[in-house]
């Protein structure tokens, strides 16, 4: 679905469209640092421009079928930026950024810019060292987009790590009581995961280099790792896949690597929580798809059952834990774990489909189901990113309206704060997957795919059941209870409601028109499932 005017605009940008999108926030961040009070205006402007650019990018991406013989695997706007060369061996090793997007990356970039834009709007309660805050904010935006654009391991790792620095400061400096500890915990946990992942990156570089004679970190291209990795011994690939699982699993997060998440999400300031839940978790999901299914398909196919079981356990575990929370933000944080485990289930099921022989007609049903589940995973990431942003903004808003986020202490919100309640109710419904909202489509796609392949994966519906239970129970306690005359509760001002209302638009739109996202990711999903069959 290439739209010509979008393509023309993007191609007219200096440094190439992708590099321009990365550099713009960096430069704007520097300006914002010295702008003081004006920083907010600059940030809104730049994040707005980035949002428009990413919309254009989605429109400009070619979503026609990707051929298995394509050496760049359907990547477009590919650009190479060489950082340094190591003159060893027969071929020099190059440290470089390779930027490129396909439908999946473009959709993730759109999501990250959408969430960052909404988070920027909802930063209106930040009034301490604004220049520094917005500078970090835009550095964060660069890092996030870079992760989704990088088509080489070193660039990927740089952006992956770059995200940690601004997030650490945002959580620790602008968060609430106890946020410093949460910030350190967040940093060390995710850094630990990426350390293991980095060793896997080096191993890919070394083993493939020893086998083919070309030492490279590039994923795409004729010598790219995507073309050469599948030839390695299965046991090596499984080792690499487990290391990738460490890195991505911490971010997603998967039980037992999830411990940082409730801390970081609860203690962070509202915009910080929005970005954490809205995109940082999706970095994990995206890595599972890009460095897992896309790069190491056969290893993931072998690990499929393990991942599916882990996903289902995480879902139910997180649902039960969420039920026990009294802090609304904490409840929403566990809801995130609960929902992101669906992504892993979709990935695991898709991995099973990859392992099947597409030429055998008996497998057609299973392969189609795997395709469905993978699209569901991608859709789940987008939908969860939008829904959870609204939930976190509303949870943060309660602190200003009711003075607390403790569920037992808030009563009769419907009577005293109707506007706030209305949006909270809508978002909650979307969160547990009521038909008509995007969450439903995502869960339906994944479950329809997964039951065909693993019948027992239907147990995950038990997770939905509990989720519906605790969310309705939460609403019952704070929204529909009798007002407590002794407690002061004020309604949210329209100013504070701009961001959540804006974010509800995609939630409802995608609920009735899911093809808005699925049309762009279909080609990638088909390519991943069928492109590397034996």
């Amino acid at each position, binding site marked *: 679905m290439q739209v010509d005017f979008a393509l023309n605009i993007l191609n007219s940008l200096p440094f190439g469209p992708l590099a321009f999108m990365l550099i713009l926030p960096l430069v704007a961040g520097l300006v914002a640092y010295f702008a003081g009070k004006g920083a907010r205006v600059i940030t809104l402007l730049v994040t707005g421009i980035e949002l428009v650019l990413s919309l254009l990018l989605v429109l400009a991406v070619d979503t026609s079928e990707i051929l298995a013989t394509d050496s760049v695997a359907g990547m477009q706007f590919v650009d190479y930026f060489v950082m340094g060369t190591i003159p060893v061996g027969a071929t020099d090793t190059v440290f470089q950024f390779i930027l490129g997007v396909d439908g999946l990356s473009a959709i993730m970039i759109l999501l990250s810019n959408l969430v960052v834009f909404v988070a920027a709007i909802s930063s209106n309660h930040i009034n301490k060292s604004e220049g520094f805050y917005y500078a970090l904010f835009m550095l964060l935006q660069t890092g996030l987009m870079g992760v989704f654009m990088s088509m080489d391991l070193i660039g990927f790792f740089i952006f992956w790590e*770059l995200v940690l620095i601004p997030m650490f400061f945002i959580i620790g400096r602008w968060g609430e009581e106890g946020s410093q500890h949460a910030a350190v915990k967040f940093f060390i946990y995710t850094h630990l995961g990426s350390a293991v992942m980095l060793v896997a990156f080096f191993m890919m570089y070394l083993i493939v280099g020893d086998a083919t004679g070309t030492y490279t970190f590039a994923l795409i291209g004729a010598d790219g790792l995507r073309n050469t990795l599948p030839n390695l011994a299965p046991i090596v690939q499984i080792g690499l896949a487990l290391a990738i699982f460490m890195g991505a699993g911490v971010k997603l997060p998967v039980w037992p690597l999830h411990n940082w998440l409730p801390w970081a999400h609860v203690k962070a300031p509202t915009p910080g929580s929005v970005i954490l839940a809205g995109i940082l978790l999706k970095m994990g999901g995206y890595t599972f798809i890009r460095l897992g299914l896309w790069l190491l398909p056969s290893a993931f196919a072998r690990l499929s059952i393990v991942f599916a079981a882990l996903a289902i356990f995480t879902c139910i575990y997180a649902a039960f834990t969420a039920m026990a929370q009294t802090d609304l933000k904490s409840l929403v944080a566990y809801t995130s774990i609960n929902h992101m485990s669906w992504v892993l289930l979709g990935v695991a099921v898709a991995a099973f489909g990859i392992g099947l022989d597409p030429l055998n007609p008996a497998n057609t049903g299973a392969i189609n189901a795997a395709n469905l589940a993978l699209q569901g995973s991608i859709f789940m990431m987008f939908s969860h990113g939008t829904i959870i942003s609204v939930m976190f903004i509303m949870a943060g808003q309660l602190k200003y309206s009711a003075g607390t986020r403790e569920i037992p202490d808030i009563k009769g919100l419907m009577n005293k704060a109707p506007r706030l309640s209305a949006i909270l109710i809508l978002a909650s419904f979307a969160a547990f997957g009521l038909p008509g909202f995007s969450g439903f489509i995502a869960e339906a796609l994944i479950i329809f795919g997964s039951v065909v392949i693993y019948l027992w994966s239907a147990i995950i519906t038990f997770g939905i059941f509990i989720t519906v239970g605790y969310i309705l129970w939460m609403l019952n306690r704070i929204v529909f209870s009798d007002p407590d005359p002794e407690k002061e509760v004020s309604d949210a001002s329209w100013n504070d409601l701009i961001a959540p209302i804006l974010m509800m638009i995609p939630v409802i739109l995608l609920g009735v028109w899911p093809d808005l996202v699925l049309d762009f990711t279909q080609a990638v999903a088909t390519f991943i499932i069928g492109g590397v069959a034996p």
Partner: protein
Amino acid sequence: MMLLQLGQIADIIRGILSPITNFLLTIVPPGWIMSLPALTLIFFAILALAVGLKYNPLGLSFIGLILAGLEMVMFDPAVLGAESFGGQFVRDPMADFFIYIILIVGFLVLMSSTLYGGDKGPYNFMLLISFAGAIWVVMATNLVGLFLAWELMSTPTYILVALGPGRKAIDGATKYFVMGLLATMLMVFGIALVYGVTGSTDLVVVASVVEGIWGMFATTPNAAYTILLAVVLFIASFGFKVGVFPGWQWVPDAYASADGSVTAYLAGGSKKTGVGALMRILVIGFVVAQTQWVFLIVVVAILTMIIGNVLALAQKDIMRMLAYSSIAMMGYLFIGIASAMDPAVNSVAYNLGVGAALFHAFTHALMKTAAFILVWVLSVRLAKRITYDDLAGLSKRAPLAAGLFAILMLSLAGMPLTVGFWSKLVLFQSAVVAGMWWLALIGLLNSVFSLGYYLRVLRYTYMMDAPDDSRIKLPAIPMAAVVICVIAVIALFLFPSIILDYAFAAVPVP
């Protein structure tokens, strides 16, 4: 293809100064030419001592150092021959790489000395003599020359540490001196053993004799074992200066009690000479024994990383924390040396390992020199030893200092946007390429562990409120030194090839 971007600048300087070069070539004896930078430093050291009786000699020191730097550029060893003093000292690419590190660190240290101590003659004298010794250490290809240069470099630093403020400086210096003497004894013993077995102290001759001994291992095992004992002694004695296991104990005491400028020199400059000398001995003299000494180096690397990181986490004093962190950093560097396999076996791993270690030596010199100068400046301004509590709210009291410190800490932790990222990346990559992925993993886990204390600095500076909000006024020239380093730290992330190419070009060809 290699770029060596700075070559053009060097050509311009050579072009401008060519008349002076030609004049000097006529009056200076040919064997002295390559040692001229060190000789210049010695000349200016004596001059500074004399002038220092009445006037402030710091300007003279600056002139001496800049002249030495210019002489480095003017006399191209590729054209004029690299040997000096009959081949005792050689300016090969590796020596050049380390000499530039020493000169850059020296310049920064002199900038920092404007704040404290730099106005005295003896201080300048000793600093410059030590620089000259350091230059000869990294140039030495003969064990006797190496020993002499080593003493020339070390002896002044004992006194420099003792000159630091407060009674504690004497304690630190005593510890440093006693352990330094012990290390020297071990080195002499090692040299004697090598001489006894091989009949020579020239490293190239030693290398060929050792190769013969290894070839006849079955018939003359005793000679081989003697050589291995000498290697152990060398690792212990040079490792003392570098501050690695087992000789690290003096580091925190001497670093924390000395004048901060001297600490910056010890961490940034003299430490690198130990690295340079050890690398030269191991990869030129005893490269055939690589499979034997690599085990030792791996153990040293792992223990050093763990000791440095664990003890750094326990510190309250920032200077001591940085001292322990610099011990840990040398552990990372030793990963690179451990990856330097015999080039006949695996030349990729050899080049990558030595190159990574050289690159790390350079970046570590930048980061640690700046960090020590910064803490020293704060320490002088607040008139106390800096602990974490003193850093609270620094982002309000001195925003520039807080920002610079934050960048330096992130760089030491190896985060992107700083050159620390590349230097750790290449080190761990070299370990993986040498077939030691577990060593890379241990290094990475240590690197994660080290976040515990680096992030604590960021937490105090940026997230805590200060007990009093008064601004701290910082001196211009030392801060300029820190700013230069931090700009370099960021610029080298964006353009790592500026130094990376030189580091790999400096890998010695055995």
